[in-house]
């Protein structure tokens, strides 16, 4: 049973426009959420995170929104740049429950930003 779902395998946007990547989760124990970016032949790199006590977190062009009631989070990239073309993974953790600090990852969304 998939606890973190990224239902769009791919997304294509024009340079300068907004990219919106979506993620849904099913486990109500998740309280910490992260986005990772992955380029081909490289390991994923941490992008941005949000705790369940917040509903928004910004870092430059990247903003993550969390809707706890809908168990939904989204990553907004504004403006999108060709260098943003990568696979984006959503991840979640039940950190407050204690234990392992394991992350559960979605399957990823491949973003292509066209010049």
């Amino acid at each position: 049973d998939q606890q973190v779902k990224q239902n769009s395998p791919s997304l294509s946007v024009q340079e300068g426009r907004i990219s919106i990547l979506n993620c849904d989760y099913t486990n109500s124990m998740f309280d910490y959420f992260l986005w990772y970016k992955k380029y081909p032949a490289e390991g994923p790199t941490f992008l941005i995170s949000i705790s369940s006590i917040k509903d928004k977190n910004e870092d430059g062009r990247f903003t993550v929104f969390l809707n706890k009631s809908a168990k939904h989070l989204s990553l907004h990239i504004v403006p999108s740049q060709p260098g943003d073309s990568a696979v984006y993974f959503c991840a979640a953790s039940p950190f407050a429950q204690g234990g392992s600090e394991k992350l559960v990852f979605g399957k990823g969304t491949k973003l292509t930003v066209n010049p």
Partner: protein
Amino acid sequence: DAGITQSPRYKITETGRQVTLMCHQTWSHSYMFWYRQDLGHGLRLIYYSAAADITDKGEVPDGYVVSRSKTENFPLTLESATRSQTSVYFCASKPTGKDYGYTFGSGTRLTVV
């Protein structure tokens, strides 16, 4: 060099052979993890470790063995490789505390023929 390194980057092995993938980190992070990435499955946790000599299973542990005698090393061994273990393997580490994301290595692409 500081960071997390995986070796080898590429490996081809035969079915039934034992193969070990190495992971080394220089930060003395408490936690270390092994994930595999497969098309259509994303990143799946194989094993993880909270500290030296403490390891636990993840989502897909069958066919794999880990050890962690030193904080900085976390090798992953495939005892008898199968074709279904063809994948890209990523090691990651993180310090204790939730404000730190994982830092991943560059990955090992393993092909079992």
